[in-house]
């Protein structure tokens, strides 16, 4: 009889916490045993430095390189271990540290693990680790600088030191030989940002001056800013990963605040600099980083202007002491980035070569690629070796996990005990295999069942390690879930720590795999949930579903696994053999070349059913195909609603579109709002079947499983899918149809369009008698009659807008007409219902328009808006218009005195012409206006109902509207008559002024006659001399 594994666990949450450290920085420095027990050898490239003979490709070559330098008194050894974040660099340094011989008198080791978090602690660690004196004084000064100062004050001091650095300490960079154009530009930009030195050497109008501006100052000192974070790291431990490179960010400057420009008013130079910074803040942020680096040692008291001990001095003293002792100084830094803003002190030491009074340095440090490339040239050129992590411990991911599975089973105490026994003599084989030794050195009692049901992994130095609680599928899905680029840290955090701790509790309670398993593992499925469960329901259904997916790969569940997880194997799912041989695929017949099927798109749908997010493209596609399928069965044309284009399409689209299918909150895009048709697409089995059916039919156009372009979904019946889809589509189409008809109020919208056009025609000057039939209304254009009077102009414009709007006219054809023929144009209008609407409009036009506005504000906003404009304009114009009409009628009655307008005009023209000829016409320059007025008056038809027009103003707006066809002529004629009358009056006055002669005409004639006689006498005398003489 085999042993049951029900509820079995060979680890505990405590053992996990004691042994699994994803962050090497969090691993206590004395925990080498735990560290080494789970250590997986790594592969390192050696791109720089001499290779040691017989050197391996793993971390041992780093140790060899370090040890090979020892004894060389003339040179330092700098070894950089580089790689991406989480690749295992710190592990390598830690491994080297664990394998250095502590008893060796030839060197002194200063080891700084990643666990050191604050700058104070880091400095303390260095000071304590360095032999020699002076450290105490140094730390006292640091403690005084930090301890006697609050964070806010230190932050402000830092900022002032940065300004000092920018104004004085940072030097302009000089051109370098061979610098690229880009480098030259960057250098010049930096120098420009520093500002110009004045006569005293202080820089003016540079970045330092900008930092002094209150808005800039405030943002730099804000909470969560770069300075704030740094100061926090001085006082308290803060989490930090080596991938995180602290630096100033654009948010550290008030780039979008207008207050800066106000503060800069009057300083054109500084304003110009600020504009440059705003345009591209990156160079300024780099310079701020540079300034902060200068400022930190001063603000923290590491450098003094006096004679105090500095970090450099401490290093020198140590090296001098060790030289005297014949020792060397080994520095091991798990993360060089820890030194951050004080790394300059360290780099100075790296660059200081040993001599007669200085011991050499042997340094191994880990650093990520980006900072490594940015190391100062003085350090770069002195790097002796660079080792680059190529493939990490994850080269064999199952083995990597298995080492930890074994470690948590063995436990920390056991491991430390074993390590203490071997202590550096062996790098492999000192850790026991828990599966084989768990029962007091004997194999675990369920080993055979466990290894058979969950499988094993061969691990170098350990042998076969059981995968429990994983099996091969589960470990694959777990690792896959972390992604292709997962780091060891990622895998340890989730695949080992979290998974094991959770599993331990849930297996014990019989609730494993619990709901979160779906997040811990790759939960990709290819079949629907109900297919996978094959109808199994009940309280275990969800747990069983998760187990079937993660451990059973959607097909079958090993009985041992089911037993361990307290699951009952469902009917129809017989226990399979513990290690089911994978059936090899049948050999294809070379003669048959089946058309390759596309992969099924349904797994994404099934994945969505179990909680994943449906990809946006899939959501869009399902929305689209459902929309098209429902749209195609609306059949609104039968009810004379044309929705293929135009207003009908717009109205339909407003209430029903792709957003009507709501795939839940996590789906892309908005969901249809209020007043719209909304279909909630749930993740229930029925809806999933409808979606699968819709997708199949959409892609294939038939229900024949064998002829699909992708495989028929396993577990589904074609007939069931078809019927389910049809029923659902019909239901949805019914809802849409009902909503549409409600929206257009049956024929109400068409009636509104006809009525609105009729009112518009009347308002534009057409007689109500001429728009009594629907056909008249639909065919009549905007009348080109007498222009509206000024008081009616706005109403006339609004009316013409309606008449010229094709969408309003087309409404009738789209919601109340039969469309047929080649063009599909509206052929036959449902006139019966429309005539009734027309009558209402003509009977009470203003009330009708108001109703249109109210009823169709949402369904037909263009029509409702136009109607609103018209009725508003009519109501606003009516009082003025009626007053205008009243005045005009009065003027016409008075002026025409019962005569026809044309006859009066003719007479006035005759008199005016005579006055013009005799020079009496007035105004003297008014003939043209008079003549125009005569023409206007002549055009006024006889028989205007002037006498019938009474001041009955009970329906002001309607009265003004329905009399437009004659009143605008009357108003115009009255205006012309007024011009004519004024001219006549002025002319008459002029004539009366001219009636009389200014002197005595007869007397003047007598005088002239006499003078003429005298003149004749003299002429005669002058001409007749000879005659008289002769005579």
């Amino acid at each position, binding site marked *: 009889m085999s042993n049951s594994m029900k509820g079995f666990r060979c680890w505990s949450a405590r053992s996990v916490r004691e042994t699994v450290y994803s962050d090497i920085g969090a691993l206590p420095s004395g925990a080498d045993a735990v560290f080494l027990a789970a250590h997986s050898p790594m592969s390192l490239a050696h791109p720089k430095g001499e290779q040691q003979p017989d050197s391996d490709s793993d971390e041992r070559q780093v140790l060899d390189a370090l040890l090979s330098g020892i004894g060389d008194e003339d040179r330092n050894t700098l070894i950089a271990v580089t790689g991406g974040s989480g690749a295992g660099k710190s592990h390598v340094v830690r491994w080297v540290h664990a394998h250095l011989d502590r008893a060796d008198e030839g060197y002194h080791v200063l080891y700084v693990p990643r666990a050191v978090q604050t700058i104070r602690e880091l400095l303390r660690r260095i000071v304590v680790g360095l032999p020699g004196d002076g450290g105490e004084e140094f730390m006292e000064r640091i403690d005084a600088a930090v301890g006697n100062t609050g964070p806010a004050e230190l932050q402000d001091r830092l900022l002032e030191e940065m300004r000092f650095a920018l104004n004085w300490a940072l030097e302009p960079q000089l051109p370098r030989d061979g610098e690229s154009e880009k480098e030259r530009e960057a250098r010049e930009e930096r120098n420009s940002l520093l500002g110009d030195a004045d006569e005293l050497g202080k820089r003016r109008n540079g970045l330092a001056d900008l930092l002094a501006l209150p808005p800039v100052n405030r943002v730099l000192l804000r909470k969560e800013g770069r300075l704030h974070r740094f100061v926090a790291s001085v006082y308290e431990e803060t989490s930090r990963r080596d991938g995180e490179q602290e630096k100033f960010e654009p948010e550290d400057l008030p780039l979008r605040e207008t207050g800066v420009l106000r503060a800069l008013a009057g300083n054109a130079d500084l304003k110009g600099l600020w504009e440059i910074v705003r345009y591209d803040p990156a160079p300024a942020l780099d310079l701020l980083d540079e300034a902060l680096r200068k400022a930190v040692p001063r603000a923290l008291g590491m450098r003094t202007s006096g004679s105090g001990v500095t970090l450099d001095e401490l290093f020198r003293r140590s090296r001098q002491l060790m030289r005297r002792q014949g020792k060397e100084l080994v520095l091991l830094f798990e993360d060089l980035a820890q030194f951050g803003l004080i790394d300059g002190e360290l780099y100075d030491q790296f660059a200081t070569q040993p001599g007669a009074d200085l011991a050499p340095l042997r340094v191994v440090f880990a650093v990520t690629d980006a900072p490594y490339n940015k190391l100062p040239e003085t350090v770069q050129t002195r790097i002796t070796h660079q080792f680059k992590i190529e493939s990490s411990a994850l080269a064999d991911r199952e083995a990597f996990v298995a080492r930890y599975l074994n470690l948590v089973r063995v436990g920390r105490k056991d491991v430390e005990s074993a390590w203490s026994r071997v202590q550096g003599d062996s790098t492999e084989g000192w850790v026991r295999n828990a599966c084989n030794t768990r029962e007091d050195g004997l194999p675990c009692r369920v080993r055979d069942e466990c290894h058979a049901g969950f499988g094993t992994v061969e691990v170098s130095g350990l042998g076969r390690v059981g995968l429990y609680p994983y099996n091969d599928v589960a470990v694959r899905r777990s690792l896959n879930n972390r992604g292709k680029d997962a780091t060891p840290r990622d895998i340890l955090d989730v695949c080992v720590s979290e998974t094991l701790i959770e599993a331990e509790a849930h297996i014990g309670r019989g609730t494993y795999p619990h709901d979160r398993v779906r997040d811990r593992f790759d939960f990709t499925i290819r079949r629907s949930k109900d297919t996978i469960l094959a109808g199994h329901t009940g309280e275990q259904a969800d747990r069983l579903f998760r187990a079937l997916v993660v451990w059973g790969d959607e097909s079958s569940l090993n009985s041992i696994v089911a037993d361990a997880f307290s699951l009952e194997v469902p009917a129809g799912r017989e226990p399979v053999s513990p290690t089911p041989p994978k059936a090899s695929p049948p050999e294809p017949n070379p003669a048959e070349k089946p058309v390759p099927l596309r992969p099924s798109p349904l797994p994404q749908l099934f994945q969505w059913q179990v909680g994943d997010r449906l990809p946006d493209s899939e959501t869009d596609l399902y929305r689209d195909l459902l929309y098209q399928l429902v749209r195609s069965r609306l059949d609104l044309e039968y009810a004379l609603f044309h929705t293929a284009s135009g207003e009908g399409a717009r109205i339909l689209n407003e209430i029903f579109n792709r957003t009507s299918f709501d795939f839940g909150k996590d789906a892309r895009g908005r969901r249809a709002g209020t007043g719209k048709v909304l279909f909630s697409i749930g993740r229930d089995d029925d809806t999933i079947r409808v979606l699968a059916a819709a997708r199949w039919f959409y892609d294939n156009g038939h229900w024949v499983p064998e002829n699909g372009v992708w495989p028929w979904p396993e577990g589904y019946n074609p007939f069931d899918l078809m019927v389910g889809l049809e029923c659902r589509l019909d239901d949805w189409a019914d809802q849409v149809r009902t909503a549409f008809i409600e929206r257009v109020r049956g024929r109400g919208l068409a009636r509104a369009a006809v009525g609105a056009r009729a009112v518009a025609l009347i308002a534009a000057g057409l007689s109500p008698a001429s728009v009594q039939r629907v056909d008249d209304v639909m065919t009549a254009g905007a009348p080109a009659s007498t222009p509206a009077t000024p008081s009616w102009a706005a109403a006339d414009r609004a009316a013409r807008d309606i008449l010229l709007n094709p969408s309003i006219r087309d409404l009738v054809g789209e919601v109340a007409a039969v469309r047929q023929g080649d063009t599909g144009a509206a052929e036959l209008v449902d006139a019966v219902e429309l005539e009734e609407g027309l009558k209402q409009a003509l009977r009470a036009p203003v009330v009708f328009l108001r109703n249109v506005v109210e009823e169709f504000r949402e369904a037909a906003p263009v029509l409702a808006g136009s109607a609103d404009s018209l009725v508003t304009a009519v109501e606003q114009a009516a009082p003025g218009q009626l007053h205008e009409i009243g005045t005009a009628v009065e003027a016409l009655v008075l002026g025409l005195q019962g005569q026809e307008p044309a006859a009066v005009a003719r007479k006035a023209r005759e008199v005016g012409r005579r006055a013009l000829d005799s020079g009496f016409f007035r105004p003297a320059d008014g003939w043209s206006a008079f003549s125009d007025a005569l023409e206007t008056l002549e055009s006024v038809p006889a028989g205007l109902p002037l006498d019938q027009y009474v001041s009955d103003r009970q329906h002001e707006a309607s009265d003004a509207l329905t009399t437009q066809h004659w009143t605008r002529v009357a108003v115009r004629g009255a205006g012309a008559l007024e011009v004519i009358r004024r001219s006549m*009056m002025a002319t008459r006055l*002029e004539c009366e002024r001219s009636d009389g002669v200014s002197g005595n005409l007869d007397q*003047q004639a007598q005088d002239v006659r006499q003078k003429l006689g005298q003149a004749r006498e003299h002429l005669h005398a002058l001409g007749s001399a000879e005659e008289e003489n002769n005579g």
Partner: protein
Amino acid sequence: MAEGIPQWIEETRVAVDRAGQADRAQMDFDALTTASEELGQVLPSLVELHNAAELGRGVWWTGLDVDSGLLADLDEAQTALDTRHQALERRKLTNVARRLTRMEPRLRESVMAAWKEYVASQAGDAAELRDLMQVLSGAEGIADVARQLNEALGRLARLERRLPDARSLEVLDEVCALFGLLEGRLPAAVKTFVSAAARGGASLELVDAEVREWLIDNGALQNFRAVPGRPQEVRHG
């Protein structure tokens, strides 16, 4: 109100008609006023010319061909004004007055030309004669006459530029008398020469040795010069 015409139009029509008549009367009056003014300006000049012509009638004024059309128009205009019942022909009246005005300078020029010609025929070139008289005013025996003649010639020169009147004729007579007295006091040969020279020029044959000596003795040689051509015929009245 006239039938079929609104009252306001009819009132205007009446006013226009009435004002038209008044306007014509005013234009007649204006035309008469203008003609009267123009005639008033030209009449004094015609009176002057008439008087001058009267003085010279039969002596130096032989009459002028006056435009008969103008005389006829004057008659017609006069007649028209006599009968005021017909419309005044304002244009014709204006035309007549204007033609009279334009004729006046021509009449004046004719009268003046006739007068000047007459003076020259009686007293020669008065200016040149005065020069000679100034030279001879120192000559023995003729000095007093020469001085008186010089003064008379001065007065005649001023009067010669105006229409002649009775005073102008008196001065001309005085000049002629004094010149005769002067001639009477000269040697015979000199008298012939001076008389010819003073009245249009003497031929070189008249300048003999006696004349030349006399001219040199009296310092008058420089008052004569030889010019090509024949001496002018001088009429003696």
